[in-house]
């Protein structure tokens, strides 16, 4: 979808969702629009543009600029078309000599305090003020610049990505309203009165010092050059654009990559993107510079041992070398001695190819994906209870929710564009229950206060979920008819006996969870009786020894209250990475083929065997933790790791490093020499999302196109690298374009059978299942019945984790993310986002800090049963006493040196969220950090030798 650059269409005011239609005439043209539509929007839809400055269709009409005046038959004066709604039979005139005069006069006043530097202005040719001056026919300004004006107002260039130039501001308030209505941060205001009025960030602070989250909504909304991307100032206006999908979190925002040649000038959120509807966050909007960062490695490299310098080689040599070493390893140690790990950052087509290569080229099922360490319990839990391993809703569905539970998720940091939607709904009056050990932003933020915050002790989620269900059952608040009609009766009755037991009462579970019984009871009543109830959850649910149990507990709650199968309700896993859903869909787990079909299923295997021309293994392969154990045991010797940094992201770093060192041939395909690549023998250069075609599937099951904006820097997209390796191993893979891979996926996977690139281009995006029954996709799942038929209430017994606090390790560490950084930080650390978060810190409650003599900013040692690391202390009451918290975005932090290899009972998803630790004041980094620094230096020197 390559297009010459054009600003995205703007209808002036938001769309009305009324189903009642109204017909009117505008300049003699008959227009029919939904009731509640503004005259301005009706005119736009009828092909008539009314000049405007303060109106834009992402914001409610404001009526301040007085440019959009019109005449309406039978009405006196000149009403503003943005604030006047249509009525049946209305006759509107948008042009007359009087209107023209009024508009020119107003425009003249604006321009009398605006610099006339259009030719050198960064938004020359892309400025609504300039356009509007032209539209109203302004030819002269009578007032001159002699009087008082704002032309020398000082610029604020504090934000790394955009500049605020108040000399160009026309005080339309679009930026202020965008910050409020679209983003929900309320960081901007109009300060002062009359002539002194000005846009102000925070408490008259710079943008960088204020609470601005740099989402870019104000920049998008600005009709002048007041708020302008620095990349536009530096590089100029783009000349073409490509619509693609963001490669950060699981929201899957659609963007226009605006280009000059092969250079990205700007990423603008795409209004027609269903996941984001024109909004973005600081990562997707601005943090794309890593694509061309100097650290990118663009040539394949090989070496015999990790102590050798790297040697740059051709793709052919690297691929042949890898194939020979893998074959030799299999000949010596056996067919199952090698495997692969694929990545949720890669496209559906790429992860599909990796699992196909493993099953057909390696001849085993040793394929796993990074979803193992995040949402594998979601797959297990939702498949068991509802019948499908996926979230049930659209993001837009939250606009119909009345009660929202956010559990173990921090949307304002990790899924910010969804958080903005959610905050909008909460401001409209929806109720909020937060279940989280920390006081996340949603608990209390501008115009939002959670009705209940249940500050659960890490490791006890299941007790809270069981207690919520217990209250609903024992107080008779369940949806009797829904359950009778839609759920397994015998299993439900068995479950009721289980959950009604006193051991699940809030008064009993309070001793484990720390959640006050009265709050829990009130929250249960609210969720059960408050109307449409929607649950959103994240890794704070899944990354526990009972992650799968908790997911089943969530599904139980939703079924119990009839909150599945329609708009405004549902069970919504917020996926951490961009393509977690897709990588799971594509058969990246060792026990199942694409479409979640077990490898032991003969009919499924035969289907793939016919297509692929091989005999497939009927036994599950190794999961990631099994691979590490087998490597240390000497049974697993070859690993192909695409787009995943297991040395940084997986738990118990000592264990992971020991495993990587034991592997004889470690192949890493990545865009940078990441922590894992420092243990590798072959490096295959990866491609960013801007360098390839494909699809991502977001947390809504929405399949969206990724479109190439520039050629891959290494000469090959990741799918091409995998294909070359597969063919060197003796496979027969010949795809000319990822669309052909998707055609194969559709042919073999019933839930994808209606998906094609052609249809994706036509519809924009598709939520699977998409097949003959649902040719346009499935926005809401389980509408009439559950995918498994009847819903299954799973027994969810609480089993305490073995990772317990004691006198030696009295505090519980839990981990999470921050807005500006993403996962292991490989991308965002190589952008200006690091200005917001240059290092990971340890959050500790003032009480725990004081007991240990720790002050804010002190170096503190964090000692767990498996390791130690050192971070700066952030003394804060965001965490409660007994709980400490850190992020894991920087390798040197060693957050996973201290996390253990405890894991979920059903899926082996690591228990990142519970580690017993002791904290003490220290003066130097840990011994691991010292070793890491030395190893890092050595490996970078070995890399330099390859480059020179």
């Amino acid at each position, binding site marked *: 979808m390559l297009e010459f650059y054009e600003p995205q269409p703007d209808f002036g005011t938001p769309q009305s969702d009324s189903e009642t239609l109204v017909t009117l005439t505008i300049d003699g043209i008959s227009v029919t629009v939904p009731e509640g539509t503004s005259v301005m929007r009706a005119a736009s839809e009828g092909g008539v543009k009314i000049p405007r400055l303060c109106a834009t269709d992402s914001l409610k009409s404001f009526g301040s600029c007085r440019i959009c005046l019109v005449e309406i038959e039978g009405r006196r004066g000149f009403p503003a078309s943005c604030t006047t709604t249509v009525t049946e039979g209305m006759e509107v005139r948008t042009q007359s000599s009087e209107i023209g005069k009024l508009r020119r006069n107003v425009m003249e006043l604006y321009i009398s305090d605006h610099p006339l530097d259009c030719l050198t202005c960064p938004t020359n040719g892309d400025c609504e003020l300039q356009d509007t001056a032209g539209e109203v026919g302004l030819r002269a300004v009578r007032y001159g610049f002699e009087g008082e004006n704002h032309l020398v107002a000082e610029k604020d260039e504090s934000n790394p990505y955009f500049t605020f130039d108040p000399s160009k501001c026309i005080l339309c308030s679009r930026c202020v309203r965008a910050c409020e209505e679209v983003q929900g941060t309320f960081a901007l205001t109009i300060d002062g009165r009359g002539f002194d009025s000005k846009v102000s960030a925070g408490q008259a602070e710079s943008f960088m010092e204020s609470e601005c989250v740099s989402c870019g909504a104000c920049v998008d909304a600005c009709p002048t050059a007041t708020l302008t991307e620095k990349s536009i100032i530096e590089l100029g206006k783009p000349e073409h654009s490509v619509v693609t999908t963001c490669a950060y979190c699981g929201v899957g925002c659609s963007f226009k990559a605006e280009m000059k040649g092969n250079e990205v000038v700007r990423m603008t959120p795409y209004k027609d993107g269903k996941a984001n509807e024109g909004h973005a966050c600081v990562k997707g909007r601005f943090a794309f510079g890593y694509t061309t960062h100097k650290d990118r490695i663009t040539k394949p490299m090989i070496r015999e041992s990790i102590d050798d310098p790297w040697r740059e080689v051709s793709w052919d040599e690297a691929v042949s070398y890898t194939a020979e070493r893998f074959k030799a390893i299999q000949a010596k140690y056996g067919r*199952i001695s090698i495997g692969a790990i694929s990545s949720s950052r890669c496209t559906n087509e790429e992860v599909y190819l990796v699992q196909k290569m493993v099953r057909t080229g390696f001849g085993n099922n040793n394929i796993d994906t990074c979803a193992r360490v995040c949402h594998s319990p979601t797959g297990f839990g939702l498949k068991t209870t509802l019948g499908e391993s996926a979230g049930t809703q659209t993001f837009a569905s939250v606009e119909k929710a009345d009660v929202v539970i956010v559990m173990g998720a921090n949307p304002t940091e990790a899924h910010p564009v969804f958080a903005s939607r959610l905050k909008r709904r909460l401001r409209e009056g929806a109720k909020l229950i937060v279940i989280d050990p920390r006081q996340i932003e949603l608990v209390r933020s501008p115009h939002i206060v959670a009705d209940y915050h249940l500050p659960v002790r890490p490791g006890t989620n299941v007790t809270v979920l069981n207690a919520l269900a217990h209250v609903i059952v024992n107080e008779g608040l369940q949806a009797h008819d829904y359950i009778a009609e839609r759920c397994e009766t015998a299993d439900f009755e068995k479950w009721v006996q*289980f959950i009604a037991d006193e051991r699940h009462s809030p008064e009993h579970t309070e001793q484990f969870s720390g959640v006050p019984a009265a709050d829990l009871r009130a929250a249960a009543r609210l969720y059960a009786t408050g109307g449409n109830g929607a649950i959103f959850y994240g890794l704070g649910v899944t990354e526990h020894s009972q992650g799968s149990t908790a997911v089943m507990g969530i599904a139980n709650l939703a079924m119990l209250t009839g909150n599945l199968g329609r708009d405004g309700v549902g069970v919504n896993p917020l996926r951490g990475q961009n393509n977690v859903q897709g990588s799971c869909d594509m058969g990246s787990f060792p026990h199942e083929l694409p479409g979640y079909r*077990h490898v032991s299923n003969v009919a499924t295997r035969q289907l793939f065997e016919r297509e692929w021309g091989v005999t497939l293994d009927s036994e599950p*392969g190794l999961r990631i933790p099994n691979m590490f154990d*087998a490597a240390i*045991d000497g*049974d697993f010797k070859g690993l192909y790791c695409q787009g995943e940094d297991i040395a940084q992201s997986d738990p118990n770093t000592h264990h992971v490093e020991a495993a990587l060192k034991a592997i004889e041939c470690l192949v890493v395909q990545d865009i940078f020499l990441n922590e894992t690549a420092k243990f590798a023998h072959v490096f295959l250069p990866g491609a960013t999302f801007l360098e390839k075609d494909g699809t991502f599937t977001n947390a809504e099951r929405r399949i969206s196109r990724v479109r190439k904006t520039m050629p891959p820097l290494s000469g090959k997209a990741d799918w091409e690298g995998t294909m070359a390796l597969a063919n060197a191993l003796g496979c027969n893979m010949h795809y000319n374009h990822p669309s052909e891979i998707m055609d194969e996926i559709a042919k073999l996977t019933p839930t994808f059978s209606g998906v094609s690139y052609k249809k994706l281009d036509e519809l924009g995006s598709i939520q699977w299942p998409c097949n003959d029954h649902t040719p346009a996709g499935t926005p809401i799942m389980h509408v009439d019945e559950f995918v498994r038929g009847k819903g299954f209430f799973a027994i969810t*017994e609480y089993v305490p984790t073995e990772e317990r606090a004691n006198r030696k390790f009295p505090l519980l560490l839990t981990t999470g993310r921050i807005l500006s950084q993403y996962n292991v930080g490989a991308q965002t650390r190589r952008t200006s986002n690091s200005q917001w978060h240059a290092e990971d810190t340890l959050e500790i409650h003032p009480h725990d800090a004081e007991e240990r003599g720790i002050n804010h900013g002190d170096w503190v040692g964090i000692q767990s049963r498996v390791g130690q690391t050192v971070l700066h202390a952030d003394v804060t009451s965001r965490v409660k006493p007994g709980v400490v918290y850190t992020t894991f975005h920087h390798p040197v932090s060693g957050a996973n040196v201290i996390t253990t290899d405890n894991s979920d*009972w*059903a899926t082996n998803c690591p228990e990142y969220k519970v580690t017993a630790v002791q904290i003490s004041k220290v003066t130097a980094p840990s011994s691991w950090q010292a070793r890491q620094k030395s190893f890092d230096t050595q490996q970078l020197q070995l890399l330099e030798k390859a480059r020179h």
Partner: protein
Amino acid sequence: MSASKIERLVKMVNQISLNMSSNGPADFVAMQVSEHLEKFWSPPMKNLISEHIADQNIGLSPISLKAVIELAAIQKAK
């Protein structure tokens, strides 16, 4: 076979059994556990744990032991 290797597997089976323990009578739970192992474990893991069913000292809980015996039977029947 290293001791730690079998210890790891025993720990895993016991964890699965404990989490399924309220699903029903012991025989029913043991069957569910063996199905889980069959469905998700790789052959070397299944074989190794199955080889140790006669070893009373490896620490399998009663339900886990039942499950592993069933798993061994499934493996043998293949």
